[in-house]
């Protein structure tokens, strides 16, 4: 019954999404109030049916209904309840359903908040409906999570143990909230082109912010997970899947900045539209990369191309359609920016130049190996050294310029006054650089430079907190977000340059040292988890002869899935992580132990949180202002 119910709900949702598309686009005309009403109703209806389908699949996972192929392939009765639930999106079919659920939620939000004129909202719902119908078709035809198995197996195949982790349980929904959230900006941009309304950037801003916050948190969460779960202390691997989430973030960040100018002075009108289209296009491309199997190998993709081909067509239609609309309608938009060379607009423009170039580095680095393999079969790998030579200097140059943005005036800024106002930040930068020279060893020029820039960023943010009392929430939001960049930069630098590590084979009672810490190995015990067996090492962190605390890194074996994972033990002071991973059993009670001391590691994710918090502050200011004053762009109904 469950499977059929879910299938039926999906079919209803498909029908409603088509209604939404037709009625929404019709409602773009000024005299079609009825169509607009229908579009709003269909949006809510679709949301209800997608939620029902998702709820049905969740129910099937929770009750271990192995007559449904997706559940049988990806779940197991012994799995703890939370991982039965998160297992819903731990597989291709379920994650696509989550994708559509998030898309529907954003459509519902667009309908409920209804920023901008009624025609703009209606057209945006129409575009959102088109996207939803395409993705529901994709699910029904190539990735149906409700397909039956006959006979139903007695036990499920289980979920990849790497995914059985609280961090990764919330990572995909968070990331999708960002990825798919960019669809709202995309729909608003397309709607603005259809209706010809200029106030779209203001209307879409809350959605840009929500998507950006979610993306920031999602990326930080994914990086943190990789750090503690993968067992070798790294936090970013320039892996294509990571890059797929970084590209939309870079474009969304550019969009947030460009839209600011569009809203305020009408500058960069067409460029902001293009960025809104590009942002969601990056999400689609990311989805294609992750979901089509093209990453594991071009040939794996070619052997079963249905899914990949479908998404490719979908991307083609969405991006092609939007760009076509752009080429057709954008020239009719009245534009023309007016600002001086030294102005906030110029700063925002430079921000976009560097962010686009940084995104280009990630884009080419991710896709070029696939292209080359497809063309002449040559296999190259694009690893961290490539990004260190391309992405890093471009992004670093951007960071140098960041503090100027918020301090320059619109249209005509005063460079001298701004430079004077920022002088104390330069002082903080110098202190940070000197501190590195005094404390850190070995002394790297990159380390000194990175800390100077971090000090510069954080210093400028502190200045704007002190000086701009009574300023609007948006000013503080920018200061927070920019300070977050500085915090993350410190974390990345500290971990990359000054990490110490030790590797030892220890018998019980033996000690090893890593950085300032002395560790005593007290042996390994065997533990039984709900669906795994663990070898748990007992490591005493020594303070002289006294045991300060115990750390217990584990090796877990998941028999159902036939895989094992390393569960690290991390002890953090907030400024420094002691990180332990248990290695091989070397016999006679001796085990390999790998230990790292990573200075400032927590700052990497703390900075991400600070950035996201800045975004939330900006969103709060926006929603509050929006609630007080009716939108200036609202048009009288007919």
């Amino acid at each position, binding site marked *: 019954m469950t499977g059929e119910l879910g299938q039926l709900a999906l079919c209803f949702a498909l029908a409603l999404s088509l209604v939404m598309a037709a009625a929404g686009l019709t409602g773009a005309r000024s005299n079609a109030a009825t169509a607009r009403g229908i579009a709003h109703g269909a949006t809510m209806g679709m949301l209800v049916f997608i939620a029902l389908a998702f709820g049905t699949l969740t129910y099937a996972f929770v009750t271990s209904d192995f007559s449904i192929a997706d559940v049988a392939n990806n779940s197991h009765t012994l799995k703890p309840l939370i991982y039965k639930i998160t297992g819903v999106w731990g597989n291709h079919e379920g994650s696509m359903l989550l994708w559509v659920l998030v898309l529907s939620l954003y459509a519902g939000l667009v309908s409920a908040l209804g920023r901008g004129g009624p025609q703009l909202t209606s057209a945006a719902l129409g575009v959102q409906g088109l996207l939803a119908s395409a993705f529901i078709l994709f699910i029904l035809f190539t990735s149906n999570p409700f397909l039956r198995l006959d006979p139903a197996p007695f036990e499920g195949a289980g979920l990849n143990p790497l995914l059985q982790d609280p961090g990764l349980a919330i990572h995909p929904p968070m990331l999708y909230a960002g990825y798919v959230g960019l669809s709202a900006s995309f729909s608003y941009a397309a709607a603005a082109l259809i209706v010809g309304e200029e106030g779209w950037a203001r209307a879409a801003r809350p959605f840009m912010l929500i998507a950006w916050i979610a993306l920031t948190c999602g990326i930080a969460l994914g990086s943190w997970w990789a750090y503690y779960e993968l067992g070798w202390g790294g936090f970013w691997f320039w*892996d294509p899947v990571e890059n797929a989430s970084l590209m939309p973030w870079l474009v969304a960040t550019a969009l947030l900045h460009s839209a600011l100018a569009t809203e305020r002075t009408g500058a*960069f009108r067409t460029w902001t539209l293009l960025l809104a289209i590009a942002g969601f296009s990056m999400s689609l491309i990311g989805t294609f990369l992750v979901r089509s199997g093209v990453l594991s190998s071009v040939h794996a993709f070619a052997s079963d191309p249905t899914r990949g081909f479908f998404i490719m067509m979908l991307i083609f239609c969405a991006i092609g359609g939007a760009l076509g609309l752009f080429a057709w309608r954008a020239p009719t938009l009245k534009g023309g920016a007016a*600002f001086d*060379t030294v102005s906030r607009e110029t700063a925002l423009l430079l921000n976009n130049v560097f962010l686009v170039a940084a995104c280009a*580095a990630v884009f080419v680095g991710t896709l070029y*190996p696939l292209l080359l393999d497809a063309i*002449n079969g040559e296999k190259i790998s694009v690893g961290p050294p490539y990004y260190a030579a*391309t992405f890093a200097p471009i992004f670093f140059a951007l960071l140098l310029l960041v503090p100027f943005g918020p301090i320059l005036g619109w*249209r005509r800024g005063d460079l001298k006054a701004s430079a004077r106002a920022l002088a104390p930040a330069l002082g903080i930068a110098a202190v940070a650089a000197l501190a590195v020279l005094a404390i850190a060893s070995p002394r790297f020029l990159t380390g000194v430079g990175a800390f100077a820039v971090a000090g510069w960023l954080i210093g400028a943010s502190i200045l704007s907190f002190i000086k701009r009392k009574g300023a609007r929430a948006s000013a503080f939001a920018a200061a927070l977000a920019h300070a977050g960049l500085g915090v993350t930069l410190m974390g990345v630098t500290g971990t990359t340059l000054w990490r110490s590590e030790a590797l030892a084979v220890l018998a019980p009672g033996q000690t090893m040292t890593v950085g300032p810490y002395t560790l005593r190995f007290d042996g390994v015990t065997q533990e039984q988890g709900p669906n795994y067996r663990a070898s748990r090492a007992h490591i005493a962190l020594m303070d002289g002869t006294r045991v300060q605390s115990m750390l217990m890194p584990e090796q877990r074996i998941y028999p159902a899935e036939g895989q094992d994972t390393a569960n690290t033990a991390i002890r953090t002071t907030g400024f420094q992580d002691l990180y332990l991973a248990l290695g091989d059993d070397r016999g006679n009670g001796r085990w390999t132990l790998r230990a790292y001391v990573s200075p400032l590691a927590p700052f990497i994710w703390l900075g991400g949180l600070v950035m996201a918090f800045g975004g939330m502050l900006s969103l709060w200011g926006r929603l509050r202002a929006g609630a007080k004053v009716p939108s200036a762009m609202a048009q009288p109904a007919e």
Partner: protein
Amino acid sequence: MKKFLFLLILLAAPLRAAPVTDTFSDPATEARARYLQRQLRCLVCQGESIDESGAPLAAELRHLVRQQMADGRSDQEIEDYLKARYGNFILMKPPLQADTYFLWLAPFLVLIGAGAVAIFVISKARRAVAELPPDLL
């Protein structure tokens, strides 16, 4: 059979800390070895360098790198040797050659192109701002 072996290696290569290998007593030489190891991709678990990987093949490659270093070969010679054996794929840093010029240049071409557009936009906006009534500034 080869494919089966590959699968076996995959299964036998869980994500765990790398086994102990021989280390150089001289810290500078050891640092050089670690640097070299980070430049080489593990061919089994492709997300990692041989420095991080726990796969048996990575351990062999680490041993190979250290052996070659002990034989007095330069970084370049060692990378060339591995490239000849395993192809460009083993190098984390893609080589600069005819079919990778685009890869290496594209980010900077985009930077220059976008910069040129920005300069054009700014010069146009400057002319426009001169014509604005002063109360708008």
